[in-house]
C-alpha cells in the first residue's frame, strides 16, 4: 500500500480523482476557472480507454455525459456559473430519468459573466433549485485540495449508487489552489458500481426499485429492450403523463433515494464544538478562513467552534440543530448575499441560538479577522 504525497492544484486533484473513481467519459465546454479539469481529462482519459469530447456548448456537454452514462459508462462534466446555468435543463433530465452523472461547478463571481477569475459562493441555490421541478439533488463542497479529491470520488460513488446526478460545488480558490496532499493508495479507495439487474428480460421493469428505492441498471443492447422518458413514467419506463398516482409515487421515490441514505450522504466536520459558545457554520473556501478564525479566537480565550459542511444538499440540518440550544449564536460567513444562511435559520427556528449572516460578494475572500470580529460582536 503506497500513499502518494503530491503537490496538486484543486482542479487537477478533481480530474485525477475522477479517473480513479472510474470515470471514463467527459464532455465539456471551456470556461474559467474550471477548464483545467477538461484539459487534464483530454490527456488522461484516452490513456485508460476513456473518451473526452469538447461539445458545442454546455447543454450538449451535459446531454453527451448523460448519453454516455446511459451507455453504461461513468460520466463527468465540469463548468462554472454561466455554463452551470446551461447545464440545468439536462441536469433535471438526469434527476428524473435516474441517470448517474457528476457535474463540477467551480464557482466564480456573478451574476452573468461576472468575475471570471475570482471566487464566489453564489451558486448554492442554483445547485439546489437551478433546474425546474421538485427534483432531488446531492451537492458536495470541498474546502481543501484533499477534500476536492475525496469528494470527487464520493460524488461518483453516490451518483452510481443512487442513479442520480451529483454536483460538486468548488470555487476559484479551491480550484486553483496548490496544496500538498497525501492521497490514499488507490486500492484503499472504495469504488461503487451501479446495481446490476438480476432478473431475466421477460421479468424486467426498468424503473422497478429495490427496497432502497433505487432501480437496478442494465444498459441497452444487452438483450433487455426498454424505454426511458423524461415525462412522468411508470415502472415500465413508459410515459404516464396524466397519471396522478404514478406521479406521486415517482416523486416520492426520487427523493427517498437520498433520505434513506442520509446518514451516509450528509458529511460535516465539527471542530472544537464541544464547549463552543459561538459556532461558525462555513463551507468551501470560506471554511478555510473560518478555521483560521477559530484558532485565533481560541488563542484569545473565546469559546468558538466550526461546523464545516462538506455536503450542502441535502442540508445537514441535524448537525446544526444539535447545537441550537448549546451555543449563543451561529455565524454564517458566505461569499454571496446570504444563501445557505436561510437553511441554518430554518434549522434553528425553535432554538435559542441566534443566526448571524456575514457576507462578502466583491470577489475577495472573507478574512479570518472579519469572522473574529463577528464573534466578538456576539459576545
Amino acid at each position, binding site marked *: 500500500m503506497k500513499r502518494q504525497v503530491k503537490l496538486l492544484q484543486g482542479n487537477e486533484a478533481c480530474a485525477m480523482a475522477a479517473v480513479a473513481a472510474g470515470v471514463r467519459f467527459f464532455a465539456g465546454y471551456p470556461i474559467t476557472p474550471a477548464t483545467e479539469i477538461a484539459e487534464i481529462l483530454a490527456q488522461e482519459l484516452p*490513456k485508460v480507454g476513456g473518451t473526452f469530447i469538447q461539445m458545442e456548448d454546455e447543454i*450538449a456537454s451535459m*446531454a453527451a455525459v448523460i*448519453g*454516455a452514462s446511459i*451507455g453504461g459508462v461513468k460520466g463527468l462534466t465540469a463548468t462554472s456559473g454561466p455554463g452551470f446555468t446551461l447545464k440545468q435543463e439536462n441536469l433535471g433530465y438526469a434527476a428524473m430519468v435516474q441517470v448517474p452523472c457528476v457535474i463540477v461547478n467551480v464557482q466564480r463571481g456573478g451574476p452573468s459573466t461576472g468575475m471570471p477569475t475570482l471566487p464566489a459562493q453564489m451558486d448554492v441555490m442554483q445547485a439546489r433549485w437551478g433546474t425546474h421541478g421538485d427534483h432531488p439533488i446531492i451537492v458536495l463542497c470541498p474546502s481543501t485540495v484533499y477534500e476536492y479529491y475525496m469528494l470527487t470520488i464520493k460524488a461518483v460513488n453516490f451518483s452510481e449508487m443512487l442513479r442520480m446526478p451529483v454536483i460538486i460545488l468548488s470555487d476559484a480558490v479551491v480550484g486553483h489552489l496548490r496544496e500538498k496532499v497525501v492521497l490514499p493508495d488507490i486500492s484503499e479507495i472504495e469504488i461503487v458500481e451501479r446495481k446490476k439487474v438480476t432478473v431475466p428480460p421477460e421479468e424486467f421493469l426498468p424503473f422497478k426499485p429495490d427496497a432502497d428505492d433505487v432501480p437496478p441498471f442494465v*444498459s441497452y443492447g444487452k438483450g433487455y429492450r426498454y424505454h426511458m*422518458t423524461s415525462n412522468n413514467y411508470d415502472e415500465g419506463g413508459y410515459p404516464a403523463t396524466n397519471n396522478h398516482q404514478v406521479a406521486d409515487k415517482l416523486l416520492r421515490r426520487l427523493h427517498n433515494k437520498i433520505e434513506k441514505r442520509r446518514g451516509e450522504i450528509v458529511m460535516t466536520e465539527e471542530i472544537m464544538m464541544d464547549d463552543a459558545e459561538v459556532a461558525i457554520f462555513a463551507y468551501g473556501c470560506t471554511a478555510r478562513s473560518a478555521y483560521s478564525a477559530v484558532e485565533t479566537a481560541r488563542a484569545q480565550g473565546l469559546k468558538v467552534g466550526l461546523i464545516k459542511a462538506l455536503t450542502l444538499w441535502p442540508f445537514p440540518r441535524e448537525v446544526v440543530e444539535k447545537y441550537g440550544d448549546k451555543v449563543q449564536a451561529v455565524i454564517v460567513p458566505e461569499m454571496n448575499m446570504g444563501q445557505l444562511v436561510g437553511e441554518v435559520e430554518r434549522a434553528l427556528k425553535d432554538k435559542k441560538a441566534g443566526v448571524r449572516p456575514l457576507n462578502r460578494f466583491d470577489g475577495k475572500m472573507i478574512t479570518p479577522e472579519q469572522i473574529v470580529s463577528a464573534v466578538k460582536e456576539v459576545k
Partner: protein
Amino acid sequence: MAVHVQDYLRMHKMPHIWCPGCGTGIALGAVVRAIHNVGYSRDEVIVITGIGCSARTNAIIDFNTFQTTHGRALSFATGFKLTRPEMKVVVITGDGDGAGIGGNHLIHTCRRNIDITTILINNSIYGMTGGQYSPLTPQGSYATTAPYGTVEPSFDICKLAEGAGATYVGRATAYHVTLLEQLVTKALKHEGFSLVEAITQCPIGYGRRNKMKSPTEMLKWQKEHAVNVKAAAGMSPEQLEGKFLIGEFVNKTAPEYTKLYQKLIEDAQSKGAK
C-alpha cells in the same frame, strides 16, 4: 418478403397518440421497414428522440429506445455512440426539435461525421404544442403564432446538413414513402453521419390553417410539388419554381468519428500525448 411493421411495434402501447391522418406514422413505418431491410436485430438498434409528436415514435417501437429533452437528442446520441460504438444509433427528430432548438447540435453532429442516422420528420410546424411556426414553415404560411402569415423565410435543412459536413443526405415525403424507405435503408448502411428529411403532413397543426383541410389534400400537395433531383437536372429554373427536391443529395465517404477516436485511444496508449 414483405414485413409486418406490427412485428416491430410494442402493441401493448397502443393506441398511439397521433391525430387521424397524421404523417408521422407513415415516416415511422418507413424507418422500421428500412431497419428490417438492413437486417439489424432489435437488440443492436437504439432509437433516440427529443420532444414533439415526432419524438413519440420511439415509445411504441420494440427496439432499445429513450426520449430526451427538446432538441438535444443528437447530443445524447453522441455521448451514447462514443461509449457504445457497436450499436446502430438512430435519431428521430422534428423540424422544431432538429432545426430550431436543436439546430446548433445538428450542425455540429454533421461536422463530426459520427455514425448516427437521423430522420428529421418535417411537418412544417410545431405540432405537439398546437401549430406554431417552425424554422421550416414556408414563408407566408399561417400558424397560431403567425395569424397574419410568417414573415420569416424557412431554410433548406438538407443543404444545411450538407454544408455542415453530413456525408449522407436525402429527402422524401410521406407520399413518396417507397423512396423514403430506400433513403433510410441507405442511410442506415452508410458509415458516418446521415440525415434523411421526411416531409409529412400535419393536418391538425398545419393543414387546416393553410387551405389543406384533409390529409389527402396534403399528400396530393407533396405529390405535385416534389421533383426528384435526377429529373430536376434537366429542368429550367422556371419549371422548378415553387417546387422542392427529393432524392439522394449527398453520398460520400469520410473518416467516421468513433473510428478516429478509437485510433486516438490506441495512439495515446502507445505513444502518449504531445
